[in-house]
């Protein structure tokens, strides 16, 4: 076992999948010669050549749509969108082509491909280098959406995505790239898509989070533990299809839930989780399901006081948990 960062885990996954399967190729801006603006694809062009590590022009529509085409003829594209903020031009190809290819062809044509999307705040990126837009893809039948929070999951989910038969939007959080390290196996492994991870068992309350927010929640859990509040922390990992069972089982046990989401509150993923908990395990609830989310303003104002104010953090989660516990 070796300690690797989240971004190293991604690089390893790409490297190993390209070694394993020659159908796998990469396309994105600055991913070749430069090795990616965050260096996620460092060294891959040297190893696999410019035909399999393609420095694309500034054409997000093509990056997504061209990958769909390559998938149709038997390739396994892994495309990169440099910042989630710049995925908006790709929406047409992601929603109308990638997500619906299988459906509209009655299963004849399929789209086994992955789009890596670098996302998230707390890096001083301001309004146009901090966005996450997971909720759009979360609401689209036909897409798989994942967002790892650890190096292990980053590697295992990326491999699972590349090997799967479905189109995957893989959100990677830029704040996590180098801020966490973890020992991960040197042997090949995958993390199953569709399964949440219980990061900490507990009995008083369930906290559900994903991505960077898992780490904020972990901090909060430690603080709350000192007060004698035992939290169960669930990392969703896969957003679509999300692991309803794991969440429901936990809430049945704890009867309380706080949901944490980095993105703006209204219409986010946690609205669905909350609504589903209410629909499916209402009887078990001792208190309303509560959400801790980014502000309902454009994600993410630049000046440090506003950035901090926007984002959920351990203190906010602690306050929310306390309020729900006191209910």
């Amino acid at each position, binding site marked *: 076992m070796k300690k690797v960062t989240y971004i190293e885990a991604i690089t390893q996954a790409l490297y190993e999948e390209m070694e394993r399967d020659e159908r796998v*190729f990469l396309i994105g801006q600055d991913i070749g010669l430069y090795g990616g603006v965050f260096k996620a694809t460092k060294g891959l062009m040297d190893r696999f050549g410019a*035909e*399999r590590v393609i420095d*694309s*022009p500034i*054409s997000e*529509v*093509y990056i997504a*749509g*061209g*990958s*769909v*085409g*390559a*998938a*149709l*003829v*038997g*390739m396994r*594209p892994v495309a990169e969108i440099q910042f989630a903020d710049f995925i908006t*031009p790709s929406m*047409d*190809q992601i929603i*109308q*082509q990638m997500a*619906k*290819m*299988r*459906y*509209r*062809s*009655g*299963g*004849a*044509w*399929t789209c086994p491909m992955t789009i890596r999307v670098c996302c998230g705040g707390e890096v001083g990126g301001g309004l146009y280098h901090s966005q996450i837009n997971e909720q759009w893809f979360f609401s689209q*039948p*036909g897409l*798989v959406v994942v967002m790892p929070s650890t190096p292990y999951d980053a590697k295992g989910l990326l491999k699972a995505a590349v090997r*799967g*038969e*479905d189109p995957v939007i893989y959100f990677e959080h830029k704040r996590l790239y180098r801020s966490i390290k973890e020992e991960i196996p040197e042997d090949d492994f995958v993390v199953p*898509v*569709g399964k949440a991870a219980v990061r900490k068992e507990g009995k008083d309350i369930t906290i559900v989070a994903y991505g960077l927010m898992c780490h904020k929640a972990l901090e909060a859990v430690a603080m709350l533990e000192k007060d004698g509040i035992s939290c169960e922390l669930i990392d969703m990992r896969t957003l679509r*299809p999300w692991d309803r069972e794991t969440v429901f089982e936990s809430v049945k046990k704890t009867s309380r839930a706080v949901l944490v989401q980095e993105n703006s509150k209204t219409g986010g993923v946690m609205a669905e989780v909350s609504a589903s908990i209410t629909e499916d395990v209402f009887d078990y609830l001792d208190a309303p399901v509560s959400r801790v989310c980014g502000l309902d303003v454009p994600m993410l104002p630049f000046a440090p006081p506003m950035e901090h104010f926007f984002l959920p953090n351990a203190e906010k989660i602690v306050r929310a948990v306390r309020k729900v516990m006191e209910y």
Partner: protein
Amino acid sequence: MTEQKPTNKKPSLKQVGLSETVLWDLYTNLLKTRLLDERLRKLFRQGRFAGTYFSAVGQEATTVGPTYGLRDEDIIAPSHREIGANVTKGVPLELIVAQVYARRNSPDKGKSHPCHYGYRPKGVISPASTLAGQTIVGTGCAMGFKIQKKDNVVLAFFGEGSTSRGGWHEALNYAGIHKLPIVYICQNNLWAESVPATLQAGIKDFADRAKAYGFPGVTIDGNDIVQTHKTAAEAIARARAGEGPTLIECKTYRWYGHSEIDPADYRQTEELENWKKKDPVIRAEKLLLDLEILNTAKREALVENLDQEIEAAVQVCEKEKYVEPEEAYNDVYSERFPVLKDEY
């Protein structure tokens, strides 16, 4: 663009530059497309199927000519007016009709939309309606072929209106940089629904768009099957040889409304009448008669055969059922992932 001047001198096979077989096949496919298209229009007007119907009558040479001679593994990236490409690529007639009828036997199991023909065994991508969408995806197929070092090609079809889309630009730009094995066929029928080509671009010849991408663009008479076939065949050969893409603009005209519910009252009758005189099927017929490949008897026999084939396909579809409602849950994902079922 060189328009064929009417002449009384009969052409020779050598002048035409195509073999008898090729000419016969091209004509057969043109005629088959025309007869099928007119039949489906009629069926729609009789209320035999739901949705709407996009006729390509008048434009057949723009799809039949380029498609003829492709291999099964070559890809067709269609839009909504490519019935001729499907016929010529060899998609069974029954499946073409089934797509229109949206019945259980349709390749898409009734999920998509009439006229959105797709068929994987013959390399025809099932299209979305979003214009130029498959031009982008098709360019990606060509990228795939290039990485695989295969000598397959892609034929992407779209109307002149679709060239206004940004994604179209991104695709052709990419193909130009990487010299992808793809041929772009612009069917310039002068109208995009009710919008004239003069409101789609500040240029007259849409082939000029290729100048922005560094590959050849050529404007041809889209109603001349010899030209559409020969120009495309040459471009396809170059694409197969790794010499990159070509944009071919075929000047043509659609005879009927944008779809069967459009009266097309935004056009002048005169414009239509002029174009009807350039009917690509009649022109091909005349050529084959002149070359003595065809005669009246042969023609009648052919029409009868084709009519029977078409009728058989229609009858199968008329008798076919719709899928069960629960079919809606299939083909969202691979078997790996379940779909949330509705409670009520």
